[in-house]
Every structure is written in C-alpha cells, then in structure tokens.
C-alpha cells in the first residue's frame, strides 16, 4: 500500500493511501469530535461535527474526506471551531436536554460535546420536534425526539448485525428512524440484540434494564465507576448499563487462584489493585533436570516414534505461556500489576487459557465477559493497543515453542520476532496456492488448515495441520513455488516468515536447515505415496464434515443403533421436554453424526453474541446462559446447525430472558455426571468421543508421519 504524507495541525504525519482525515488524525493522537461516526461503522458524514479545514473551498467532514499527499489539515482553527459550535448549538436546540442517557449514565455524546464547547443554552430557541416515544419493546426504550438522525443505529442493525430491521422514515422535522415499515419496535422483527442501543450516541435508544446478565459472584460495578477508568471511557454507557454484571468486581486474597491453565473461559480480567503471578501449573515438569521424567511407556514411545520429543528439546530457555512477560526456566513466574489486563487472549482466540494466574497480594480486579471486550475493541485505538500486546506475546511465545526451531538462539528469535508477521485467516481463506511463487514460510499458531493438491480431476486432500504445524518449506527450499494449496478450516492464526528471513535463518543455523530439508524431502515422498494410494477418502470426508474441529462429538454406531430414539427421549427429559439432539445428520464410516453440539475447539457460535450469553465457563462445554436475548446469531453462525431457537414460555418479568425465543444447544448435561443420551442408550450405540482420537485408525493413512499433526501430537511435543 502506498504511503502518503500530510500535515495535521502543523504536524507532519504519514498514513496509507485511502485513509480518511479523521483516521489519520486519530492514528496520530489528534482527536476530532464526531457524532455520526462510530469507529466500527462505515463513515457517512451526516452530522458534520467532525468538520475540518483541508484547504478546500468549504470545510469538509473529516470522517469521509480521504487524506491526500501534501494536504494541510486544521482541526481546531477558529473557523472550524466556530462552525462546529454552530452545529452543536443547532443540534442542542432540537434535543430534549438532559436526555434519558444523560440522566442515567451521563454520557450522551451530544450533550458531553456541547458542554465541552461551553454551550449551556443555545442561542436558538428550543424547538423539540414532536416525533414521540415508542415504549412497545420490552427491552429498549425509544425516544424519537432525542434522535439526531446520525444513522449509527441503522448501520449497526443493518451492517454489523445484518438484521435489517432499522431504516429511515418521514421527511424534514418528521424524519426519524423506523423499525421495519414504521412499526412499533415491540411488534417489529427486531430481535433485541441491543446493537442499536450500543451505537446510539444520545438517549434516543436506551436500555430498559430487563436483561440480567449474570456473571456469578463478585460485586456489581456502577457505570459511573467504570467510566472513570481509561479502559472503559470509550464504551457506551448504555451498553454498560445494559450489561450490568457483565463487568463485576472481584476480590482475591493472596494465594487465591484466579484462573487456571487449560480452563475454557470467556472472561478477561483488569487489575484494579494488587499484584498477580502468572505461571504454568505444569512448569515443574518442564524444568530441565527435574527428577520426574516420562514414564516407561513414554520412553518406549519415544524410541519407536521419533515425533515425540521431550520438552527439553523444544524450549529455548523459556517456558511458553501467554503473559506480558516470558517465563524463564530459572524464575518461571511472571508478575502483573495495576492497570494490566489478562485473559483477553482466551476471549479473542476462544482457546483454553494457557497459564494459571494466582493472586500474589490481596487483589481487586474487574472480570468482564467477552462481549464487553468486543465492544471495547470497537475503539480502534484501544483495539490496536490490545492487538499490539497480543501479537507481541503470541509471536514470541510461538517462535520459542516450535520444535523445528529448537536450535535457534534466543538472540535470533528476538531478531525474528521483530520481522515476522502474525496473520489471521477466516474459514475458507487461502493461505497459499499451489503453483504460486513461494514467498513465505508458515507456522500454524491457532486453528486448522487443510493442505490440498490440485489435480485436473479434482483436489486431493493431503493432510491437515493444527497448532504447531508448518508448511511452505518445500517451495522455499526446492521448487520455488508452493507445492500445495493451503486453506483455513476455521479461524486460523499463522506466523508468517518472509523468504529473506527464512534464508537468513538457514544460513546461520545449518542444523535447522538440515532438519527442514529432510522434512521437505520426506513430505514430498509422502505426498507422492499418498497421491498414488488415494487412500484419503475417509480423511477427506472427515475434514469436510469438520470433525477434527470437535472437542466432544456425539456419534451413533449405526450397526448397533436400533433406532429406538431413547437418546432423544433422554435428552428431551433432561431439558424440560425440548430435545437438543436430532438423530439425523451426516455419516462418517459406520457412524451417524447426529445434530448435536460438537463443542468445537474454535466455536464460531460465540463470535458476536451481543450479550455474551453463549460462552464457556471453566470447561469445554459451550453453554448458553439464561440471559440469551434470542437474536439467533449463534444459530446462524453454527456451521453444523446444532443450535436451535426454541420458544420459551412467557413466565413473567422475573425471568431473565424476556424474548420469545432462546438459543438451545447440547450442554453435555453439565449438571449430570454423563450426557443423558449416552447414559440412556441401551444398545451401546451412542458415545461422546474426541474425534481425533476416536477416528485415529480410520484417518491413519494420513497420520503415518509428521504431515498429520493433531493437537495431541503438539501436546506430546510440548511436554
């Protein structure tokens, strides 16, 4: 991308071509007031508050004005200030001040900005248009009179959530927002996801406080208190009010465990007071020279399986973990203090927590659900900060733990960490294509990728790789082009090393060069054998059905199943008469994969839940909490159709969910020792299994050498 240079308030800045003036200023720490533009939405430039002087004949709305090379921008000149003040005065003259939001959370953006400009009483006569209120929704209160027609709610509804409920109605003073074809909100197709409320800068759309997000335990934190913290300053007060108890204050005594390595959590922690220690529970096993070596079977396995290496060969003076500070072998504990955040990597990647955190002193911290973190990240500045931390940790950690890089010096890893990229891909995106010039070496950090050899008659799946796998070396070492096409199968994160760095590494570390060349040769031979055998039919089917993604897969042995449906009846009985299992689905070998939650390693269903109700507690099962608003996003996101929307009985205002439908999915009968469907099967046909282990013999054609890397293999390598 081409870089351009411009001057903003006499400061020389450089940004990528296509960046708006607003973003150019933001990225360089210059704040421009705005009302109609939320950083996570498409700018439309209707409020004109972000007006700046770009040297054009007229002032320009900076959110939609692209920056140009050599442009001189003034964001706070007298002319601009006068203009902005006029707009705010006009808006205030039409605004019922204080509006509902200002009264409740004190953060109406219009009133805050007007106050900042010293506008107490507008020069123009107060003329609030009589557009009325709409109180028909059980969740959201609509005050059309407080609406400034910024369209943030419309873009939130249509472009972010794709619900397409909100639009415009009327003209002139009667113009306003409308639900469907101007129906009352309560009778419209609105699913009460709350996005419009979160987007609204004023009190036009406010929360009725009926959805009770319940993060168990802890003390509630007031919106005012949260807004004092820099971390929450950019978060909508309406959102925080709506999600009361989605952020709670917890107190820990020195020595208390705050979160545990390996737990599936969906919360992040912000330290208000005190210090915590971050460490690996299994760290003693990773210390070199520790008396506790692997068992006899492990030793035998090591002899017969060269893939399984002891941990000492994989680490390079540090113990891999997710923390701000790396753990060294000599002192395998890191410390975090006031203002630090941890646990956000689990929220962002949806993978288990990678370290245990223990209170070193008495601590006070805020625990927040994923949806709060999501909203915080809509602010691009904060997001960039979080991303920066995440990338730094992720890159350094990963480079230190990859077995193939075990011979690299610490100094070279630091050097490499500065130059490599952490790149994310979504399901279906191509990482590299067969036949294209090889420009990078890839290390898989999170997720699964599929390696496919393209043939004229169709594609041949060679293998898939999970965390710890790598590819691209054949192209860089021998052919010059990529040997196969690699596609992301879920949300994938890879460390990408450019060809120059890769070659430098090989020059400096001949051992690694030798290992990679051997690996490339073996892999090519394997591919040839595999192509000849074409024994990957079952593997292909395994991949296509996404079975490797599952943590806990319900399988029904069709040779044993008598179709008595006792599993379905048991499920129904365990869940108030509503089954979460449909005995129909795809087949793999002699097994039926019924429609029932697979508790995926990378649960797409959790992405975007507006109230954070679909989440993991501290175990692998994905649960849908009682505060689900029934927006159906998780059901739409689930690629396997395993989440269904069920009507809930209207049980009065005391019930947490006030909507008519609720998402339901298998919870593995979390309150019972074993899933009811399995327990109730009289024919020993239904089983909950970990598919990579259960189907290992079927997919062993591809697992016979290093090309097939499962999470278990990676674990084996790490420990």
């Amino acid at each position, binding site marked *: 991308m081409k870089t351009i240079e411009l001057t903003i308030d006499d400061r020389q800045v450089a940004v990528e071509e296509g960046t708006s003036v607003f973003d150019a200023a933001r990225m360089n720490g210059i704040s421009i007031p705005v009302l109609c533009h939320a950083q996570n939405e498409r700018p439309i430039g209707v409020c004109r508050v972000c007006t700046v002087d770009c040297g054009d004949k007229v002032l320009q709305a900076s959110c939609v004005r692209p920056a140009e090379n050599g442009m001189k921008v003034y964001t706070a000149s007298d002319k601009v200030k006068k203009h902005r003040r006029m707009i705010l005065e006009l808006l205030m003259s039409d605004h019922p001040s204080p509006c509902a939001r200002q009264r409740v959370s004190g953060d109406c953006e219009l009133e805050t900005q007007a106050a900042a400009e010293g506008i107490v009483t507008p020069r123009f006569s107060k003329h609030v248009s009589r557009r009325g209120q709409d109180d028909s929704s059980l969740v959201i209160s609509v005050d059309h009179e407080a609406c400034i027609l910024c369209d943030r709610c419309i873009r939130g509804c249509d472009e972010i959530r794709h619900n397409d409920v909100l639009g415009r109605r009327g003209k002139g003073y009667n113009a306003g927002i409308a639900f469907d074809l101007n129906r009352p909100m309560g009778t419209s197709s609105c699913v009460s996801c709350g996005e419009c409320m979160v987007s609204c800068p004023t009190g036009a759309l406010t929360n009725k406080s009926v959805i009770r997000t319940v993060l168990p335990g802890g003390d509630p934190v007031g919106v005012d208190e949260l807004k004092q913290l820099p971390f929450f300053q950019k978060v909508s007060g309406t959102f925080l009010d709506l999600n009361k108890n989605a952020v709670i204050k917890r107190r820990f005594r020195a020595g208390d465990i705050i979160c545990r390595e390996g737990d599936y959590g969906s919360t992040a922690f912000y330290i208000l007071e005190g210090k915590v220690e971050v460490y690996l529970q299994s760290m003693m096993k990773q210390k070199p020279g520790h008396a506790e070596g692997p068992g006899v079977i492990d030793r035998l396995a090591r002899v017969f399986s060269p893939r399984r290496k002891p941990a000492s060969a994989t680490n390079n003076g540090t113990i891999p973990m997710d923390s701000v500070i790396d753990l060294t072998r000599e002192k395998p504990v890191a410390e975090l203090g006031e203002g630090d955040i941890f646990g956000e990597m689990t929220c962002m990647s949806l993978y288990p927590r990678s370290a245990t955190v223990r209170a070193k002193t008495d601590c006070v911290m805020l625990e927040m659900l994923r949806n709060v973190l999501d909203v915080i990240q809509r602010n691009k500045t904060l997001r960039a900060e979080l991303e920066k931390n995440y990338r730094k940790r992720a890159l350094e950690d990963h480079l230190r733990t990859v077995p193939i890089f075990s011979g690299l010096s610490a100094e070279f890893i630091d050097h490499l960490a500065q130059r490599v990229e952490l790149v994310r891909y979504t399901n279906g995106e191509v990482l590299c294509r067969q036949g294209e010039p090889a420009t990078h070496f890839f290390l898989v950090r999170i997720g699964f990728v599929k390696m496919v050899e393209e043939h004229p008659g169709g594609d041949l799946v060679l293998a898939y790789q999970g965390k710890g796998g790598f590819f691209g070396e054949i192209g860089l070492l021998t052919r010059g082009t990529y040997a196969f096409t690699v596609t992301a199968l879920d949300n994938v994160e890879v460390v990408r090393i450019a060809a120059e760095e890769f070659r430098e590494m090989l020059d400096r570390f001949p051992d690694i060069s030798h290992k990679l060349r051997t690996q490339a040769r073996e892999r090519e031979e394997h591919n040839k054998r595999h192509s000849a055998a074409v024994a990957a039919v079952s593997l292909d089917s395994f991949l296509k059905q996404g079975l490797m993604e599952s943590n806990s897969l319900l399988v029904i042995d*069709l040779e044993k199943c*008598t179709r008595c449906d006792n599993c379905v009846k048991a499920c129904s*009985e*365990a869940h108030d008469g509503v089954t979460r299992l449909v005995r129909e689905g795809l*087949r793999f070998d002699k097994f039926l994969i019924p429609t029932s939650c697979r508790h995926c390693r990378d649960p797409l269903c959790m992405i975007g839940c507006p109230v954070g109700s679909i989440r993991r507690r501290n175990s692998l099962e994905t649960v849908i909490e009682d505060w689900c608003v029934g927006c159906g996003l998780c059901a739409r996101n689930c690629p396997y159709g395993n989440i269904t929307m069920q009507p809930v009985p209207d049980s009065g205002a005391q019930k947490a969910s006030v909507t008519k439908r609720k998402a339901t999915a298998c919870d593995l009968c979390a309150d019972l020792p074993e899933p009811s469907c399995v*327990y109730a*099967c009289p*024919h020993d046909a239904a089983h909950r299994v970990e598919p990579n282990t259960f189907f290992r013999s079927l997919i062993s054609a591809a697992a016979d050498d290093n090309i097939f890397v499962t999470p278990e293999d990676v674990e084996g390598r790490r420990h």
Partner: protein
Amino acid sequence: MRIDATHKGWAIATIGILAVATIGYLPYSLFYPGGPTGNTWPGLIYGVLGYAMMLFAGLLGARKKRPLWRIGRAKVWMRGHLWLGALSLPMILFHAGFAARGPLTFVMTILLVVVVLSGIVGAMLQHYLPARIMAEVPLETIYEQLPVVREQLREEAGAIVGRLCARPEFAAATASTYETGRVGVLEAGDEETVDLTEQERANLWHVFTTGIVPFLREPESKESPLANAIKARLYFEALRRQCPASVHEALNDLESICDEERQLTRQRRMYLILHSWLLVHVPLAVTLLVLGAIHAVVAIRY
C-alpha cells in the same frame, strides 16, 4: 443390541450360573423323594431365582421410562435383560421339573417359551438389521418423518416436471423442497433453458402422471416398475433416450427421487421388522409376570 465381544463377561457369568444350576439339578431330580417339583425347597429356590430374573428383565421397560435416573447405564440393564432373561427359562424349567402340572402352569410354561424365543428372535434382528439398514438405506431419515419426507419428494418431483413441461401450478415448490438442494433445475428462470417441443412436453407429462406420480403416491405398491431398482433404471434409461440431453439432468434428479422413495420404503419395512416382534414379546412378558405373581401367591398360600 449387537452381541459382540463386549458381552463376554455376561456370557461367561450366564454359562457359569447355568452350569451350577444344572449340576445342582441333576442329583435333585434323581434322588429327591417324590422327584423334582415346584413345592420342594430346591424347586422353590429355582423358582424364586427364575422369577427374579424374569422380573429384572421386565424392569428394563420401566428403566427406559426413567432415562435420567442414575441407576446404572441402560446398556448394562439391556445386557442383563438379554442374558438373565434367557437364563430364566432353564431356571423355571428346573423349578417345575420339566413338567406342567396344571392349566395355569401349562399356560405359563408356554408363555415363557414364547417370550424367550421372541426375545431371541428380537436379539437376532437387532444384531443383524441395523447394519443392513445402514448399508441399504443411506438416505435413512427419522421414522416419524417419513410421511413428511415423502410429501417433499412428491412436491420436488412435481416442481421438476412442472418446470420442464411449463406447468406453473406444479413448478411452485415449497420452500422445504428447495432446502433439499437437490438440483439446479429448480432455480428460477431455468425453464428458459429447457429445450422441449410441445410433443415432448406432452409425452413427458404423460410419463410423469401415469408412471412417476402413482409410484410416489403409493410407493409400497409392487405394481409400478419404479418399485424395483433394476426396472427403474431401465425405465429412466428409456426416458432419457426419448428426451433431449438438456433435460437429462432433471431426469437424473427424478430418478434419484424415485431411488430415495424406494429407500424409504425399505427403511419402513426394516423398521417394522426391527420393532414388530416387540408386539408379541412385551405383552406376553407382562402377562407372564402377572401370572407368575399369581402363581407364587396361590402356591405359597394354598
């Protein structure tokens, strides 16, 4: 339930109990004064054990009604049902000394034999049929959904032929039909690509209404050639020869609809076979348990 290696423990225990019971029975039958009858102590012990086994076997039905009760996995109950149920027959025969001495005991003996035999037949069916269903009915659906799926297939076939023959009243398939995602021919606007003369349309419509529709309406009837896989293949091959290549894809879809219909018929038949033996086994077993209880009370009291 499939009888496989996992039943080894139960099989060994059952054979062991049977061996012990037989070894006990031999001297009892040979030397006990008056011979083996139900009213002797050894006979009573055999009777109590036999009835207890029958009762346990019978409780499987009650166990299934309470799937959430953590009182042992259902598969353990099922294995117990199979092996102890089978063992109850020799125990009761030992109890009675292989003789029925009154009308009630005669009826009960007959009932027991029928119940055990029907159970064995059922076990065999459950051992073999699921694998056959899996192999022969790849498009198996939930049994209760058969009428719905069949209705969808009829609509889908109507939609395909309706478009080919320019009959809009048939072309309008329901949304559920589209969800099957069978063919692109259902896409709107495709009728323009169909290259059929009026005569060909009329012929195709005739074939549809006189051949395919009757089969889809009554798939169980054996009169239609489409009820037989080989005849159906020849039927569609002949049809393809008579129609231009542009509609072959649609005809392939019609053929696959008929194939699915045949699979559903096969599924229904196999399902009935798989479960119909229960109509004999369960009521007779309940009757047997009731009569057994009456027999026990009468025998002990009088």
